[in-house]
């Protein structure tokens, strides 16, 4: 709503006005030029719906802060100490359907849930949240040792100066597995690729794994905070992630038949990496 008064009279901008305000906003956003995300041949975008959810939750929080600020002013300083609104409180009613504590169990629901947040304040404290496009174009199905796996790569070099990763997660959507694997428990594991080899499997390091029932569907969230931090510090060591699925007796399963959604799935269920950042310095609006 942006507090727009009904008394406003609207009119279109003139060219020079448009250029002037574009320059002003880019300076506020700290961007050298306007991005052009959709030129021909570019990858599809990454997780805008999830990010839109975050944006709306953040906007709600800002409104709360403003109202609280006004209320505090009228109640006097005394009220200040004990009126903090917690980010996950149900009063963010618009999102209670998704804001659920899901760290304890894999998040299986029908829409991307909001961040897991190692502590409850990661979104509150974040200055920036980025979701990254998966750069892997062609899916390879078999490794040299006939192990099913799926590769993911994310470019974390575009992070602005001074931003540090406070939390990062890899999210992939799982639908009901193929009927051939009905009523069994699957183990989904995510690995960081340490070294790639020519004629044998890459060297990998296990980051996280989850056990789920084949009939369950919803978002799986894997914690990749340490790996993302490592990649930001050492971009040349960013060799991507590998995802594998096994049955309880260790048999490798194809990602597709396990029900995990990849590039061929709908836009709203594409896998993505999301990272939360905190700026070390204070960002001030540039003086012009």
């Amino acid at each position, binding site marked *: 709503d942006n507090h727009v008064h009904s008394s406003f009279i609207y009119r279109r901008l003139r060219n020079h006005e448009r250029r002037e*305000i574009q320059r002003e906003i880019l300076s506020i956003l700290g961007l050298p030029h306007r991005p052009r995300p959709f030129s021909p041949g570019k990858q599809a975008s990454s997780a805008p719906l999830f990010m839109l959810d975050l944006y709306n939750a953040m906007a709600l929080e800002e409104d709360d802060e403003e109202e609280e600020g006004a209320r505090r002013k009228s109640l006097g300083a005394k009220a200040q100490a004990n009126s903090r609104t917690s980010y996950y409180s149900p009063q963010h009613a618009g999102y209670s359907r998704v804001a659920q504590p899901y760290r304890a169990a894999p998040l299986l629901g029908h829409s991307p849930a909001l961040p897991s947040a190692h502590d409850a304040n990661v979104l509150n404290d974040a200055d920036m949240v980025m979701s990254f496009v998966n750069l892997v174009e062609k899916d390879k199905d078999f490794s040299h040792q006939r192990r099913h796996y799926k590769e993911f790569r994310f470019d974390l070099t575009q992070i602005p100066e001074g931003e540090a990763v406070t939390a990062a997660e890899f999210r992939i959507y799982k639908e009901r597995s193929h009927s051939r694997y009905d009523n069994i428990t699957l183990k989904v594991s995510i690995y960081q690729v340490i070294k790639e080899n020519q004629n044998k499997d890459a060297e990998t390091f296990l980051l996280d794994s989850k056990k789920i029932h084949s009939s369950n569907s919803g978002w799986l969230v894997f914690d990749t905070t340490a790996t993302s931090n490592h990649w930001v510090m050492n971009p040349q060591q960013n060799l991507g992630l590998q995802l594998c699925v096994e049955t309880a007796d260790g048999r490798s399963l194809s990602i597709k038949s396990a029900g995990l959604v990849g590039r061929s799935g709908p836009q709203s269920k594409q896998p993505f990496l999301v990272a939360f950042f905190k700026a070390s310095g204070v960002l001030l609006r540039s003086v012009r």
Partner: protein
Amino acid sequence: AAGGKKKNPSRNKSTNQQETSRAPKPGGTVAYSPSTDYNTSEQKQACKKHELYVSFRDLGWQDWIIAPEGYAAFYCDGECAFPLNAHMNATNHAIVQTLVHLMFPDNVPKPCCAPTKLNAISVLYFDDSSNVILKKYRNMVVRSCGCH
């Protein structure tokens, strides 16, 4: 002197003020509050706060800015007579007025306006690589200058 004109600033100021008060505001939608009555014969008006709604669609930026659709910026007009626009945002507003007051203490009042209420604004946008960025800019939107 702003605008590089060599004429007498105070005359310039009055012209400027007339210009400002009546010409469409640079940088956005015309924002006239019906309650504003500009009496040109009296040049000194109390500082009034105006709102300026900036629409990203209007700027042709809806392909890379996902949300918000626009934002309400504020600027003041009147006694301090330095509208907030691309060249004069609130941060350097008081600085410029201090300088002009030093030169013309009788005509230009001391600055009483420094940004007082600064709000956060969150912007959701695509970068060049189609990654999606949600950035919170604290203390970015000036809600009012010191006069209010």
